[in-house]
C-alpha cells in the first residue's frame, strides 16, 4: 500500500498488523466466556478485546513477518464492526494465513471461517487510476449478542520501511482485557521504539532468544474511552508503541534510519536524477526566470505554469509509492501523482533559477502532526519548500497536486505541522506555515431592512480568510445553481430565499480571501406582536454551548481550530417604531477565548450590532471544563439576546 496521496483526497493510513498461531481450543474447553468479563470493561463499551497478541519478527534487513491474533467480544450491534476484518496486501506484502472463529456467549465454538468465506477485494481508494492495494475480508457477524470472534493472520512484508505501530485500543467505546505486543529482531538489526500513554503495568520486558532480541509489552483491563465534546482524538489517549527499523531494504534500495537526516537522505537518493526536463521546457523556464527579476513573482509564474499544464493522477504500484515518475514523464503526459508533480515543479523552478526542496508531510485536515521525536516513516504526502534568498528571509510553500490551490497556501491539509526537507546530505524537520486566529477570520457585514410586517431583506458581505477560506473555497468551482444551493445550506435561518449572490476569491496575499455577497429575502423574520417587534440582531452567527458532560469529564479540552469571527449588523427599522429595550453589552476575556457583543442606536435611529469572538488554538486540563462550559454558555446566551422595538405613539 502506497502512502502518497493528493491534497484532494482523504488519507488512508494502513498499519501492517501481525500473528502467532494458536491451536484452536478443543471442543468442550470454552474460550472467552462472556460471563468472565468484569463489569468495569462492559461500561460504555460496544465491544471488548478479550485477548490480542501481535508480533513483529524481523527476518532480515529486507523482510518482516507480522502476526495478529485478536479475540473480541461483541456486546451489541454498534460493536459488530469488530466482527469483520480486512487484511491488506499488495505487491510487497503477502498474507500467509487468515483464520477466524466464532464463539457463543458461553465460549463454545460455533463456526470456523472457511477459505470460501474469505473474499478478495480491490482496495480502490476511489481516486487512484491504478493501485495494487488489495484486501482479504471476512465477515463473522452474528444476529444476536453477545458473541466472540477471533481472527488470526500473518503478513510477510518485503517493505520494512514500515514497522508495526501497536494500538491495542484503536477506537472509542472499545475496552481491552489483555493485549500483548512482541518484537523479535536480530541483535544486528536493533529495534527503535517509542512508548505512548502506556499504563504503569504496560512496562516493557526485554529478553534474549538465541541471537534475537525480544521485546514484549502488555496491557490489561483498559476501560472503554467515551467520546466527549472538544476532546483529544483517541490516538492521544490510548496506549501506543511506535516501532521503526535502524536499517531496511525495499526492492533493492537500502537505507538506514536512526535520524530524520537518514530518512531524508534515503528518500532523496531514491528520487535523485529524475528531474531532467525536456530541452524545450528547460528553455521556456530559463526565459521565464530571466524575464522576472522579483523572486517571489518568478516562483508564482512557475507555479501558475504548473497548475495550468498538469493535473493530479494517482498511480500507486510497488516502489512507485515512494519513487517519483521522472520529470520527463510529467512533461509528456501532463499528469502525475504528488511525488511526480512536486519533482516536476522543483525541476521547473530550477530551470528558472530557483532552488527548492521537496518536503515530506503527513497531510490531512484532521491528521495529527507527526511524532517529531521519533524519526520514522510517518508521512503520506509531499510538498515543495522554496526558501527565498533575495527578498526578506521567508519561505514559499507549494502544493503541487491541486490546480486551483492558491499560491503559497498550505491550507488545513498541510499547514500547522512539521515537514521533512529532502536534501542530498540529509535534511531536517521544519514547520509549515502557521494559521492562527489572526489568519483564520470570518468578517461579516450585514444590512437588514425590515418592513412593517416583519419581513426582511438582508444584504450580507462575508470575507473568509485563512483556514476559514477552506470550507467555502470548493464552491467557486461549481455551477451557480449548485453554489446557490450550497450557500443556502450554510445559512442558519429557518426559511429564506436567496435573491442574489456572488463569490469573489482573492489569492494575492499570504492567505487567500473569499468574499461572499448574499442578498436574502427572509419572510416573517420579526413579525410584530401587538405593539412590539422582537429582533435577534445576531442573525447568522449564533453559537451553542457544547452539551453538558453526562457524569464526570474524563478527557482534557482540545480546541484545535483557531479563528476570529466578527459580525457587524445594521438593523434598518421601519418608520413608526423605536427601540424599547436593548441587550446590555457583554465582554468576556478568558484563557479559552475572547468575546464581545454590543448593541447601540445610531443617530439615524437604526441599530448597530457588533460581535467578535476570538478562539485561539489551546489545550486545557479536564478540570477546567466547568469554566470552559460557563464561557461557552455565556457566549451562547449573549448571542441570543433580543432587541425589542415598540410602536411609537402616533
Amino acid at each position, binding site marked *: 500500500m502506497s502512502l502518497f496521496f493528493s491534497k484532494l483526497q482523504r488519507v488512508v493510513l494502513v498499519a501492517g498488523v501481525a500473528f502467532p498461531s494458536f491451536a484452536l481450543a478443543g471442543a468442550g474447553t470454552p474460550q472467552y466466556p462472556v460471563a468472565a468479563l468484569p463489569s468495569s470493561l462492559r461500561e*460504555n463499551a460496544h465491544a471488548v478485546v478479550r485477548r490480542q497478541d501481535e508480533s513483529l519478527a524481523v527476518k532480515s534487513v529486507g523482510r518482516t513477518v507480522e502476526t495478529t491474533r485478536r479475540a473480541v467480544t461483541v456486546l*451489541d*450491534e*454498534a460493536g459488530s464492526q469488530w466482527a469483520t476484518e480486512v487484511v491488506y496486501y499488495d505487491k510487497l506484502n503477502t498474507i500467509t494465513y487468515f483464520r477466524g472463529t*466464532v464463539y457463543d456467549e458461553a465460549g463454545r465454538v460455533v*463456526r470456523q471461517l472457511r477459505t470460501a468465506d474469505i*473474499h*478478495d477485494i*480491490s482496495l*480502490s481508494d476511489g481516486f487512484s*487510476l*491504478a*493501485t495494487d492495494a488489495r484486501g482479504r475480508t471476512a*465477515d463473522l*457477524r*452474528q*444476529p444476536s449478542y453477545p458473541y466472540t470472534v477471533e481472527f488470526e493472520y500473518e503478513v510477510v512484508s518485503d517493505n520494512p520501511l514500515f514497522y508495526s505501530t501497536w494500538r491495542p485500543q484503536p477506537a472509542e*467505546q472499545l475496552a481491552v482485557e489483555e493485549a500483548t505486543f512482541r518484537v523479535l529482531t536480530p541483535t544486528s538489526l536493533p529495534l527503535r521504539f517509542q512508548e505512548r500513554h502506556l499504563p504503569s503495568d504496560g512496562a516493557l520486558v526485554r529478553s534474549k532468544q538465541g541471537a534475537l532480541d525480544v521485546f514484549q509489552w502488555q496491557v490489561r483491563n483498559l476501560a472503554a474511552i467515551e467520546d466527549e465534546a472538544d476532546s483529544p482524538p483517541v490516538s492521544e489517549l490510548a496506549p501506543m508503541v511506535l516501532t521503526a527499523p535502524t536499517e531496511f531494504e525495499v526492492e533493492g534500495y537500502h537505507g538506514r534510519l536512526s535520524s530524520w537526516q537518514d530518512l531524508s537522505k534515503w528518500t532523496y537518493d531514491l528520487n535523485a536524477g529524475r528531474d531532467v526536463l525536456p530541452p524545450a521546457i528547460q528553455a521556456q523556464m530559463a526565459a521565464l526566470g530571466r524575464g522576472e527579476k522579483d523572486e517571489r513573482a518568478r516562483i508564482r509564474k512557475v507555479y501558475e505554469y504548473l*497548475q*495550468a*499544464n498538469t*493535473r493530479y*493522477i494517482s*498511480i500507486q504500484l510497488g516502489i512507485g509509492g515512494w519513487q517519483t515518475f521522472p520529470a520527463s514523464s510529467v512533461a*509528456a*503526459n*501532463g*499528469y502525475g501523482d504528488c511525488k511526480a508533480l512536486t519533482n516536476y515543479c522543483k525541476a521547473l523552478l530550477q530551470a528558472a533559477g530557483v532552488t527548492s526542496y521537496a518536503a515530506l508531510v503527513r497531510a490531512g485536515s484532521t491528521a495529527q502532526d507527526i511524532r517529531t521525536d521519533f524519526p520514522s516513516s510517518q508521512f503520506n504526502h509531499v510538498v515543495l519548500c522554496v526558501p527565498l534568498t533575495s527578498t526578506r528571509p521567508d519561505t514559499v510553500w507549494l502544493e503541487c497536486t491541486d*490546480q*486551483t490551490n492558491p499560491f503559497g497556501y498550505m491550507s488545513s491539509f498541510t499547514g500547522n505541522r512539521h515537514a521533512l526537507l529532502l536534501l542530498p546530505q540529509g535534511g531536517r524537520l521544519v514547520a509549515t506555515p502557521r494559521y492562527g486566529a489572526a489568519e483564520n477570520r470570518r468578517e461579516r457585514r450585514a444590512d437588514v431592512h425590515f418592513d412593517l410586517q416583519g419581513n426582511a431583506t438582508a444584504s450580507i458581505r462575508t470575507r473568509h480568510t485563512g483556514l476559514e477560506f477552506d470550507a467555502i473555497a470548493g464552491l467557486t*468551482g*461549481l*455551477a*451557480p*445553481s*449548485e453554489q*446557490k*444551493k450550497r450557500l*443556502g*445550506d450554510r445559512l*442558519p*435561518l*429557518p*426559511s429564506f*430565499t*436567496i435573491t442574489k449572490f456572488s463569490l469573489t476569491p482573492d489569492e494575492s496575499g499570504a492567505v487567500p480571501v473569499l468574499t461572499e455577497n448574499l442578498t436574502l429575502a427572509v*419572510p*416573517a423574520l420579526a*413579525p410584530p*406582536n*401587538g405593539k*412590539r417587534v*422582537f429582533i435577534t440582531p445576531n442573525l447568522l452567527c449564533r453559537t451553542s*454551548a457544547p*452539551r*453538558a458532560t*453526562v457524569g464526570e469529564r474524563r478527557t482534557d479540552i482540545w480546541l484545535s481550530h483557531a479563528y476570529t469571527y466578527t459580525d457587524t449588523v445594521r438593523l434598518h427599522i421601519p418608520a413608526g417604531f423605536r427601540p424599547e429595550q436593548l441587550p446590555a453589552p457583554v465582554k468576556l476575556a478568558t484563557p479559552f477565548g475572547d468575546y464581545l457583543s454590543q448593541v447601540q442606536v445610531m443617530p439615524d435611529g437604526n441599530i448597530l450590532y457588533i460581535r467578535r469572538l476570538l478562539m485561539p488554538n489551546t489545550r486545557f486540563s479536564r478540570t477546567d471544563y466547568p469554566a470552559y462550559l460557563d464561557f461557552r454558555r455565556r457566549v*451562547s*446566551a449573549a448571542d*441570543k439576546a433580543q432587541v425589542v422595538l415598540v410602536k411609537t405613539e402616533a
Partner: protein
Amino acid sequence: MKVATLWSCALLSGLLLNSTRSIAQDIPIHLGSFSAKELPSAPADTTAPAEVLCDFGQSKIEGGMDGFVVRFDRITRVHILRRTGYEWATVKVPLYHRDGQQEKLQQLKGFTYNLVGGEWKKEPLKTDAVFSRKLTANVDEYAFTLPNVREGSVIEFSYAILSNFVFNLQDWQFQQEIPVRWSEYRTTVPSFFRYKEISRSYLPFAVNETTTPFYRTSYRSKTSDGHGGYSAGASDKVYNISTQAVARRWVLKDAPAFREEPFLTTPRDYLSRVDFELERIQFPDQEPQFVVGTWEQIEKNLLKDEEFGGFLERATPLTSGAAALATLHANDLPARADAVRTLVMQAVGYDGTNTLYAEHSAKKLLELRHGTAGEVNLLLVRTLRDAGLTANPLLLSTRAHGRIQTDLPVVSQFNYVVAHVTLPDGKELLLDATEPLLPFTLLPERCLNNQGRLLSTTGRWVPLTTTQTHLVYTAADFTLDARSTISGTIRQEYAGYAAPSARSTARESEHALRKQWQSTHPDWTVERADVAGTNELGKPLVVTFTTRLAGAEEAVATMYVRPLQHLGPGASPFRHDERLFPVDLPSSRRLEYSVKLHLPTGYSATSLPTSALINLPNDGGRFLYSVSQLSPETLQITARLALNKTQYSPNEYVALRELYARALAKMAEPLVLTKQTK
C-alpha cells in the same frame, strides 16, 4: 448480479442466404477527426466544468463462434472547460466475466486536442496510461486517462466491448452531471432476438425511431463427426445468415447538467436513460425461447430458479422450530407470523446487501448467521409456510434501485423480496426480517417504493404505500418563573417510521438519545432523561426529559416566551426555492406539539399569537396552531404540521415550502406575559 440462463446453442438451418445491405444513418462522430469548426461558438453553460460535445454508442448482435456476440462501440468527445472538469478525462470501464465467458475491451483509442499558437495540436492516448484491475470475482475494471489535459482541451476516446452475454445489451445514459450537446444510442438486433427496453427521461428525445433493415452476419460452428462428438481437426463450418433486424435510434440534444435534489428516490429514476432485458430468442423453424415475456413468465422462471423457488422448496434447520410456533400460536395467526419473523431474525442477520436471490442454502445461512436481504426473506417465506401460514414472496425494487415500470416485465427491475402472508379472513401482511428494530407490521423505509409483485398462484401487484406515518409527538408541561426560566418535562413519542432510528439510538447507549437531543437543543439543561419502550417494538419509543431553559438574570416585568421555537424542527427541510423533480418521501409525516404552560404568580397573558390553519391543496398537508387559556394561570399551545402525501410535484413544491416557512414563523411568535400591578 444475477444472470439469466444463457440460451443453449441452437442448430441453425434454413436461414436466408444473401441480403441487401441497409443504408445506415450517418454516424455523428468520427474519432481523430476533430476540427475547430466542430466546436460550438460558446459552451452551453459557461460555468460547467466540462461539456460533452458528442457521446455516441451502438450495440449490434453479430455472429461469433458457436453463438452470437454483442458488440458495443462508443465514441465520446468532451470539451474540458475548467480545471474542475479534468476528472472527465479519466474513464473507467467495468467488464463482466463468468464461467469462462467474458466481456472484452478492444480498439481503445483516444486523443487530446489543445489549441497551441492558433493550431489544434493532437496527441494520442498511450497504452501505458491504461490500467486494469480485478474489482470483484466477476468484474474487472479498465481505467485510462488522456494526456496533457488543460482548460480548453478537447478529448475524445473510442472503444468496443465484445461480449458473449447476449442477455446483457449495454444500457445507455443520455444525461450526465455536465451538459451534453448530443447523446445518441443505436441498437441493431436481428429478428431472432427480442429485447424489452425501458427508457425514461424528463427531457424529450430529439429522435426516437425504429427501422427494420436487412441484416447479415456469419456464424461459425465446430462440425460434428456424426457420432455425437467433435472430430479432431475438423474445420469450422460457416453459416451466412441474412434476416431482418430491428434497429432503434435515440438522440437527446442539449441536455443540461443533471443535479441531484433532496428527497429523491435515486438519480436513476430521473436521469434520461435506456435499459434492456432479453425477452425472446427464436430461430427459424424452432420454437421460441422466452427468456422474458410476461410477469407470469418471470414468476414461473423465478419459481424454477435454484436460488429462488428451489430455495423455498427445501426444508430448513428452522422447519421444526416453525412447527412448534404453529402449535404455540394456534389461533392468533398474526402473532404466529410475528414469532416466525423473530425466529428468522435471531437465526440469520442481514448483511446490508439487497438481492432477489439466495446464493447460499438455508443450512449454510444458519452456519454463516448472516445473509443478504434475498436470503433472509426467502428463509422467512419458507419458515412462515413451515408454520402453516399462506406465505409467498413479494418482489420489489428498493427506493435506491428505482421505480418499477409495471408495463415492462423484466426481472432486473427487482432487487429485493419480502414475505406476503394471506390470513384466512382475507387480510394480508407484508413481512421483512432484515431490521430487528422494526415491528413486524412495518416494512423498512427502503421498501416503500410504489408497488411490488406478488408471486402466488395468481401473481398481482400489491401497493407498498403505507398507512403508517412518521410521527413525532411532543407533549410538554412547563412552569415559568418570574425570570422567564422555563422548567418542566418534555415527553417525546417517536411512532411509526420515526421510531426505528430513535430506537436504534436508544439502544446504542444509555445516554445516546439524551446526547442527541442536547446536540440539537443545546439551550436546554437536561436534568434527567428517561427512555421507555426501547424493546417494545409495537409501541412508540418515549423519552421524557426533565429540563430547564434559563431565562433572565433577574425578574422581568414583561416576558416574551417562545416555547415551541425551542422545541420545534428549527429549520425547514425545503431550503431551496427551485425544484425540477417531484419530492418523494417514503411515508407521510406528522409533527405534533402540545404544551401546557403554567404562568408565574402575578403574571397574565397580555398578547397571544392568533390561531392559524393552513391547508395545502388536495389535502396534501396542513398546519394548525392555537393557543388557549385553560385558566388564568395556565396556557395551552397546540401545533400540528402534517404532510399527508408521499409525493409532491414540482408545481406543488412552492406551497409545500411555504407551508413550512409559515409554520416555523408561527411557532416562533412570542407569548407576551406581563406582571400585573395591583
